[in-house]
């Protein structure tokens, strides 16, 4: 599929937003389910991109920037694979191939993030100089520059893929045999486990493992939706907190303010 001038500009804007969000982590334009959908929306190829976004989101659920560690880059993975999906013109049939392309892209994006974060160290020193002058305007300016660098981190690769054009991309994709694309689709079902494993390793303790087991078993009941499971989980957490407190404090009369700390804060607020 060939894109017209306005579509190319819009794709680059989406890529820029996704790049900014990759570091800001606020509006979540870089999350696959949103980034891929936006690319689909501006190119008119909405449904395949939407499905791609959903599939990638499942893989990326456990990717998070924690402390100074950087997660595999969802922004480049989703923007570039969605563009390739659109250019390939295979529609829904191209989704599993696009997913397989997305993973190496997530690594490339990770390297680019590290590069920009290192460049930002230079900007931190420029800000020091601006602070010495007491100049608010210069701090604002350099903050904006640093944020834009993160946007360009995705917009430039997106532009490159657009520049190579549909022909070579489609040629490359049609070389993929069926056993490979089917196998990659199966691999996509397995890969989800890595994200969950990362999160579980972070959170697991002897105290909370039983809740994992309850969640796992209840999920076999297909009638329960995720919202339903969420409600059960929330209820279990609240029950556990109340019980562990009443058990721990023994004679409840001595510390009366432990009863409902959230309520106390709301009352004082």
């Amino acid at each position, binding site marked *: 599929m060939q894109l017209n001038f306005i579509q190319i500009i819009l794709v680059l804007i989406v890529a820029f937003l996704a790049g*900014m969000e990759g*570091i*800001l*982590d606020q*509006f979540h334009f870089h999350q696959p*389910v*949103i980034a891929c*959908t936006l690319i689909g929306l501006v190119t008119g190829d909405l449904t395949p991109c939407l*499905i791609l976004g*959903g599939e990638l*989101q499942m893989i990326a*659920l456990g990717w*998070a920037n924690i*402390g*100074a560690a950087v997660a*595999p880059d969802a922004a480049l993975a989703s923007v570039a694979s969605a563009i390739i999906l659109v250019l390939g013109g295979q529609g829904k049939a191209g989704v599993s191939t696009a997913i397989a392309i997305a993973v*190496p892209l997530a690594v490339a994006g990770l390297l680019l993030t590290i590069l920009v974060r*290192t460049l*930002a160290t230079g*900007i*931190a020193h420029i*800000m020091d100089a601006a*602070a*010495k*002058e*007491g100049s*608010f305007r210069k701090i604002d300016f350099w*903050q904006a520059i*640093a944020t834009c660098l993160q946007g360009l981190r995705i917009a430039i690769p997106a532009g490159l893929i657009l520049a190579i054009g549909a022909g070579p991309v489609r040629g490359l994709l049609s070389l993929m045999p069926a056993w490979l694309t089917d*196998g*990659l689709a*199966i*691999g*996509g*079902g*397995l*890969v*989800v*486990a890595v994200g*969950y*494993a*990362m*999160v579980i*390793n972070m959170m697991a*303790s002897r105290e*909370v493992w039983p*809740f*994992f*087991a309850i969640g*796992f078993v*209840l999920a*076999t009941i297909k009638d329960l939706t*995720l919202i339903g*499971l969420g409600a059960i*989980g929330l209820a279990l*957490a609240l029950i*556990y907190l109340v019980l562990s*407190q009443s058990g721990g404090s023994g004679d409840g009369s001595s510390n009366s303010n432990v009863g409902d*700390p959230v309520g106390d804060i709301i009352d004082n*607020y």
Partner: protein
Amino acid sequence: MADQVKLTKKDRIAVWWRSTFLQGSWNYERMQNGGFAYSLIPALKKLYKTKEERSAALTRHLEFFNTHPYLASPVLGVTLALEEERSNGAPIDDVTIQGVKVGMMGPFAGIGDPVFWFTVKPIIGSLAASLAMSGNILGPIIYFVAWNLIRMSFMWYTQELGYRAGSKITDDLSGNLLQNITKGASILGMFILGSLVNRWVTVKFTPVVSNVALDKKAYIHWDKLAAGGKGIQQALLQQQQGLSLTARKLTTLQDNLDQLIPGLAGLLLTFFCMWLLKKKVSPIVMILGLFVLGVILHVLHIM
């Protein structure tokens, strides 16, 4: 003390909006320092008028700072209160302000990661993803609206809470509340993770374990059905009575595993991944490896 400078709600909203860009200049040396100073600028502009005061204020907030991006809001709130008192002559020195910031950022990051990254995001994300995978546009819309609603209101209310509580916030949170929020979030998180592993890690083994001919009365005799719509009705009724659709019963390895508990293979795969992570295998290597494994097992007709 003739003219006490007070921060208005408008100033605080400006700080709240700017804190959206907290991580914009994230760098390996002092992390969120630039964003923190940037966020405070509307307040500093109002509180400090001379070049020396402004320079000192900016310099003190360009010190190292790093926490969860949303949990920076209560810290910003407390800092606003401290800076306001300081500019009105209260004896609050740089060390106090820096100490309060550093004291709060660690425990707050400890709340933010489990609550937002490991609980709210997987729940909203998997809900949105499952809708999107079936081609439903509501998926991304729900994600965007729900996430930003939660995030923006959380950041505003905790910033206000921080501003009002001033230096007392650390006392409030050092007790049970902090522990309870963290523990509650990890309970809910683990529960949801358990169900997500069951629902979304897809492992399907295709090899046929047994292929048994069924009793004559146990399956639908398609050649003996009436023609047209009537035949379809008969077939459906018979199926409802529990008759099999085919004359032979195929049992795959997957069927046998599902009789233990559905999702068992996915669970074992997840445990295996956790073990690999503990052995310091890079997640990227694992992801690529699983793709390769998927292709190999498919070619061998195991999956």
